């Protein structure tokens, strides 16, 4: 620290300045790390973000984002094997614990022909032609912040599990 009359003009503190410098550098590193993580998709929309889960023999496939943000819709893309259609219908069950973490189930495409509350969850039935895979999109709006375990099942088959983190 310079010991000059300039020090009488302002009350300098060399120790504080050094600490400030260290804190600034740490802050810059954290900001750069945050931006890097965001670019990679740690906060949704990026390389780290996409995830796929599949039931046995690919009868049910689910694509979803690992990370989503409160108030910003995200989608669950479901694909069901044509062999799973029963009388022109497929049934997808989603657990209540996951659905409760959502503010609203924004849209379901195609619209289900029926919904029912079964087995601690909701069963959605959709038309299926039995020739082509059935593609269903659930657009969801995350509400509850934190890590959430979801379960999705085809008819009465064991559910596939997926995890999403909802940021505030």
């Amino acid at each position, binding site marked *: 620290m310079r010991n*000059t009359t300039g020090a009488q*003009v*302002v009350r*300098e503190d060399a120790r*504080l*300045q050094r600490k400030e410098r260290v*804190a600034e550098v740490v*802050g810059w590193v*954290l900001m750069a790390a945050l931006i890097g993580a965001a670019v990679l998709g740690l906060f949704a929309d990026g390389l780290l973000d996409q995830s796929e889960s599949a039931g046995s023999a690919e009868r049910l496939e689910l694509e979803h984002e690992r990370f989503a943000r409160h*108030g910003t819709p995200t989608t669950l893309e479901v694909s069901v094997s044509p062999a799973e259609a029963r009388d022109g219908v497929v049934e997808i069950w989603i657990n209540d614990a996951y659905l409760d973490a959502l503010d609203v189930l924004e849209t379901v495409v195609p619209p289900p022909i029926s919904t029912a509350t079964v087995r601690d969850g909701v069963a959605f039935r959709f038309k299926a032609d039995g020739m082509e895979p059935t593609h269903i999109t659930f657009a969801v709006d995350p509400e509850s912040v934190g890590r959430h375990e979801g379960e999705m099942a085809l008819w009465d088959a064991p559910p596939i599990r997926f995890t999403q983190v909802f940021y505030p």
Partner: protein
Amino acid sequence: MDAVLRAAAMYLFLVIVFRFAGKRTLAEVTPFDLILLLIIAEAVGPAMLDGDHSFTTSALVVVTLIAFEIVFTVLQRRFEWFDRLVDGLPVLLIDNGELLTKRLRRFRVDEVAIMEAARELQGLERMDQVKYAVLERSGKLTIVPTNNN
């Protein structure tokens, strides 16, 4: 409750981020500083309101922000360490006419900015007319001219 928590969290977040950014950030030196300030205001608004455009929520957010500002200023007056933590201290950039170049680099200030402040504040024409240049806590520059100016 949610509005209050969001406003409080955003206030603290901004205090921390701007502390890391350094004194010169948002000192409103250039038009771009003002634009940046406006853009930041636009970015944080929706996060605090969370889609709720009611008068009640807006009023709660404003009151929370002002309350935090009052609490911070009271704490800063009361505790010197807190004051230094939040706002830092002024820094000498020119000492008895001598440019402290390391500090100029450290605080991202150049001679052009110092001369601009010298002209604006003191009507000075040359660098050798500046005795002291201080980077204040606000990020603004203040100039003490030499005795014969």
